[in-house]
């Protein structure tokens, strides 16, 4: 299958509220994500970022519009094991070691056309070589999140979905993990959809940043980030980087005021 295009046309998603009124969580979403690109999604809380990921991965169905992943419906793509997913919390199984947590998805994901990568090597690469047999409770927050990332990468997915994976980490740990994420991505060149709250994180990582606004959840802006790769840490002190940050900040402020968002 290789890397994958994601296409969304006129997608809408409703949730029936307790008062029987339908909440429009996503409205009129048109989005094409080129194969192998790194796309960030940024927007205020409640603008439908997580809902968007759930639609792409086929966990929920759209109420209107069309979504395809490599030309398949999301459900078919999931059956074909196209996805890797990294949630906000690492979501590791407390009774399995780091290695066990990383290998378990393979047990339920035996796809004929790709072998299992050397997961131990991958873990060693992100600095978990000495922690292969530790339990999650013995790990720091950053180590847990790295395990969750390797778990997703180890599947060699066509599409990697990340829902605010670094939200709970401190600034420096976060930066270190961003770097590792980029390196892994440059090896595999999967299509990445990355949800974040952080402006600088979005600029640092992405080819393209999708800005969303809430009420109803919609796309207000798509900004291309033309910074050279590989992007190392020093890049964030450069004026170009700062300029992109300001641009994104302005765009986001609009999204916030439009949405009259809750804080």
């Amino acid at each position, binding site marked *: 299958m290789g890397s994958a295009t994601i296409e969304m046309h006129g997608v809408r998603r409703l949730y029936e509220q307790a008062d029987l009124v339908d909440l429009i969580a996503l409205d009129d979403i048109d989005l094409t994500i080129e194969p192998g690109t790194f796309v960030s999604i940024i927007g205020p809380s409640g603008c439908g970022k997580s809902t968007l990921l*759930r639609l792409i*991965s086929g*966990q929920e169905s759209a109420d209107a519009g069309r979504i395809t992943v490599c030309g398949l419906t999301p459900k078919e793509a*999931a*059956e074909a*094991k196209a*996805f*890797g*997913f990294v*949630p*906000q*919390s690492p*979501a*590791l*199984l*407390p*009774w399995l070691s780091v290695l066990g947590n990383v290998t*378990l*998805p393979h*047990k*339920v*994901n035996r796809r004929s056309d790709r072998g299992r990568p050397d997961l131990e090597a991958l873990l060693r*690469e*992100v*600095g978990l070589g*000495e*922690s292969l047999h*530790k*339990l*999650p*409770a*013995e790990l*720091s927050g*950053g*180590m847990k999140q790295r395990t969750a990332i390797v*778990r*997703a990468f180890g*599947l060699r997915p066509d599409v990697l*979905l990340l829902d605010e994976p670094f939200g709970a980490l401190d600034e420096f*740990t976060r*930066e*270190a993990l961003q*770097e*590792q994420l980029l*390196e892994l991505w440059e090896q595999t060149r999967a299509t990445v959809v990355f949800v974040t709250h952080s402006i600088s994180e979005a600029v640092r990582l992405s080819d393209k940043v999708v800005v969303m606004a809430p009420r109803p959840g919609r796309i207000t802006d798509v900004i291309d980030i033309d910074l050279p790769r590989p992007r*190392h*840490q020093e890049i964030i002190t450069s004026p170009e980087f700062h300029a992109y940050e300001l641009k994104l900040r302005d765009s986001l402020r609009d999204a916030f005021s439009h949405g009259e968002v809750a804080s």
Partner: protein
Amino acid sequence: MSLQPGAPAGTQPAPPRRTHLLVPTPEQLAARRLRRRTRLLRPAYWLPFVLLLVVLAIGWGIGARQMPYLFVPLGEIAGVLSEDPAYFLQNTLVTLGEALVGLGIGFVAAFALAVVVSEVAVVRRAVMPFAVVLSVTPLVAIAPLLVVALGFGMAPKVVLTALVCFFPILINVATGLRAVPGPVLEVYRTVAASRLEVLRYLRVPASLPYVFASLRIVFPLSMIGAVVAELAAAGSADGLGSVIQVASSQNRLATVWAAIFVLAALGSLLFWFVTLAERRVLHWHQP
């Protein structure tokens, strides 16, 4: 990797600079180790318990003098126990056997039903109301009928014990099977894990802490179930329940109390045993 954080303190073999640790001198270390090892031997730990024990024993003694038809001097009870320990041991083993077999059957049935109930909504809606009704039914009242239906020997006792243990296990396991956090389920749903795989790899292991919680309840409960069955139902004259019944009909109060003490001790032992097993098995779980 340009900025690869190291492992946290204490988990690396020997970091070059450890000034953040104040390693105590060997004497200090020995003292600390002794202090920790003997923690449970310190009076602050056992003295309150022993004091209350003494107070209760004295109270018992007074009670025995005031109400001789109710309490028996502890010495007499100890006498009965030491006189014929084999008798108590044999009857204890009978009751324990009934209790454990019943518990085993109840556990397997309840666990299986919990799995079905948590996977199939139709079965849940059909079965759960009856499970609640079963749990609030005084099974003691049914025990004599069970003997008539099942005859003598272990069968009615085992069935009653299984029934007594059934509900706490069912409720706990059904809760435990739902205890997989949402994000974990999402991760495995995005790789299209089947229901069976989710059950096997996620739900069943996640339910273990709940399983142990229920075991802490039902291990002692199974003893109570077996005794109730022995008390209420005819059949062989073995088991501590029968010992209590016969002795009580013959006004041998010392034997009655001896059997009750043996039961309480055995129940505490089972409770403690489950707690210990839990700590072993669930080393990954911190409540």
